């Protein structure tokens, strides 16, 4: 068929012709910041509407305005900073202790045969224990004060960190390690320059899990025995039926969680910029 003929065909389609339908639609969600903030505002507005009309009882669930007032009261009286300061100290201290220990053990388990089987066995046996169950034991060992709270958080953070770290070490491409060895890099350099950066993405995603576990355990520990701390604040407010203060405490926890995840996001971008 001549070129001219082909063109002719294209210009005079058959009556049965139809365009090819586009089929690859959907399965491609995109983010929309306006909708994100909008959903917040909508939920709070509906809540306020329910409270104002009396549909939601003030005793069971205070209105957003009441919660904001309670929060403001906590801020200007300075109580909030007292509670928040105590909580953050425990959170940061406990998390760092658990993370450092978890990283060390995770690296040993990931790299050495002698640590491998005993490490995996012990971690598998101890990981499923809800760490709150051990809090009474820690109180017996370390007293009702700060050390038992640090220990609970550190212990809870330790296991997921170990598991993520050795998983990350396992996932470092073997060919990169062999490359390092083939250039006679000393072992310490192989660990620091190849294994550590290679395991870092997995370790950092483990930080997200361990930080949320740390917040859960923090509140639990503070509810069992603490004078100050967000957990103590929430418990005391509950005992006095001050639901506005209770919800204000919960809001502070939500903000705390958001801050932690924002910080981890920054850490991700700073350390994993090469991705």
């Amino acid at each position, binding site marked *: 068929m001549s070129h001219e003929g082909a063109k002719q065909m294209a210009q005079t389609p058959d009556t049965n012709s139809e365009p090819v339908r586009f089929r690859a639609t959907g399965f491609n969600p995109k983010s929309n910041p306006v909708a994100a903030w909008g959903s917040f505002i909508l939920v709070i507005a509906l809540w306020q509407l329910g409270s104002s009309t009396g549909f939601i009882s003030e005793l069971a669930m205070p209105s957003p305005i009441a919660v904001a007032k309670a929060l403001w009261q906590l801020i200007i009286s300075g109580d909030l900073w007292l509670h928040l300061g105590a909580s953050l100290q425990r959170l940061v201290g406990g998390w760092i202790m658990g993370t450092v220990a978890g990283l060390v053990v995770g690296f040993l388990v990931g790299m050495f045969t002698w640590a491998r089987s005993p490490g995996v066995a012990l971690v598998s046996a101890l990981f499923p224990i809800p760490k709150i169950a051990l809090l009474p034991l820690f109180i017996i060992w370390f007293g009702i004060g700060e050390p038992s709270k640090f220990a609970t958080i550190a212990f809870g953070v330790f296991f997921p960190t170990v598991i993520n770290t050795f998983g990350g070490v396992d996932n470092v491409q073997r060919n990169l390690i062999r490359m390092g060895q083939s*250039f006679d890099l000393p072992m310490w350099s192989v660990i620091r320059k190849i294994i550590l950066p290679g395991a870092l993405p997995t370790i950092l995603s483990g930080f997200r899990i361990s930080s949320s576990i740390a917040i859960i355990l923090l509140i639990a520990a503070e509810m069992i025995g603490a004078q100050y701390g967000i957990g103590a604040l929430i418990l005391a407010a509950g005992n006095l039926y001050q639901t506005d203060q209770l919800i204000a405490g919960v809001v502070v926890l939500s903000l705390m969680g958001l801050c932690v995840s924002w910080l981890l996001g920054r850490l991700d971008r700073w350390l994993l910029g*090469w991705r």
Partner: protein
Amino acid sequence: MRLQIQNVSHSYDQVEALRDIEFGIEPGEVVALIGPSGCGKSTLLSIIGGMLKPTSGAVVMCDQAKPEGCLNPLTYVFQDFALLPWRTVAGNISLVLEDHPLSKSERDERIAEVLAQTNLSDFANAYPKQLSGGMKQRVGIARALAVRPAVLLMDEPLSALDAQTRILLLDEFSDLFARTGMTAVYVTHNLNEAVRLAHKVVALRRRPGTIKEIHTIDVPINERREGMPELIAHEQALWNLIRDEAIAADKELENVA
């Protein structure tokens, strides 16, 4: 430096991969290892560089003649490049120099020198993911040259590249060998690469891997051109050598599991 492979045999569990391999690598010589898949050519290269312990036999460095400033006598170039994705091109080269007593300026000098040799000077601060396959392998070459190796061990360095890039890099390798007189062991399954680059082609047979023939090509490397009748004749001779083995390898089921 002269390398002597002495009676090397190797078995993985029950499977005998190599048996009684014996040959020498003379200074300034490029030796190609060819053979069908599963003949143990990569295993042999790992043994030559000390990355795998042979079941019996040894690889011996017969003298201590090394190039000036040699930091790692037996240096690999990898099929999959093995670049650290979190380091820039310059950083990847720096990696293999950092643990040696070189001053910062000596190190920078070496990096600049090998980048210039591989035409990578403009890419010093690029990350591997930004580079094409050919560029990545040039970084692999630059990294290997930075330690001034006595023997370059190249494990199918062109296999992961597309056909066009392969032609370009083959020319660059040929220039490199002709210009520097580098000693090298070059593993490939591509006969064309072997006849373009090697002085000596070691053809292996499989199961167990033994030397079938050592084939010498005496055309100087810098005079070899694509499509030269002599080279085509050599390539044909090599193909006749390993053809039956290749057919057998192709038909074989994976029964090694």
